[in-house]
């Protein structure tokens, strides 16, 4: 891992066109501004990990999915959690 020391309003550049700038430094947190091309997705790590876990849990073999669809199909209306 590359480690940088940056001050307020200083930045690092990643590759061609990605910039991460320090916007605010608090006691327990740092506010960062990311400038990146439209095609580059930027996400909070914990959000990415949550959705990754949900995707991993949802993946199944096609036959199992067919059985699940058959089990769920007649009862489409839903209720919230």
């Amino acid at each position, binding site marked *: 891992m590359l480690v940088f020391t940056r001050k307020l309003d200083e930045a690092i550049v990643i590759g061609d066109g990605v910039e991460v700038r320090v916007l605010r430094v608090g006691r327990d947190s740092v506010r960062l501004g990311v400038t990146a091309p439209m095609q580059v997705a930027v996400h909070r790590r914990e959000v990415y990990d949550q959705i990754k876990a949900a995707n991993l849990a*949802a993946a199944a073999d096609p036959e199992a999915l067919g059985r699940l669809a058959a089990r769920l199909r007649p009862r489409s209306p839903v209720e919230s959690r």
Partner: protein
Amino acid sequence: MTTATQSFPPDAGAITFADGLPGFEACRHYVVMASPALEPFLCLQGLGDGAPSFLAIDPRLVVDSYPCAIRPTDRSRLDTPADRPLVWLAIVSPNAEGATVNLRAPLVINPETMRGVQLLDGDDAYPLDYRLQK
């Protein structure tokens, strides 16, 4: 309402997710399989060895008022102007009680370019595990 099933032409090719899906970053191409036996669900099948399969449903069939809203940055990743219709799919996850639907991070697909993204900054008002009633 036009559902996801109706939005893909019968000869639609593979959908490309440029970054893959979280957890399956290496699998970037998927095909949608629809059949009367699956309705109202669709099967999203990854292409390649070890590729995942998902059951998915149009989130508006789960929640009538589901807001199919997409940020301009995500829309640009789909290479589509603002006035073109998009296909929305929410991934269904089986569990012991039945199934849940990920309404927080839907898949959005441009049926014209067959590009897709999973919205990771979706509406916090909707959960990752919205329960389908048995």
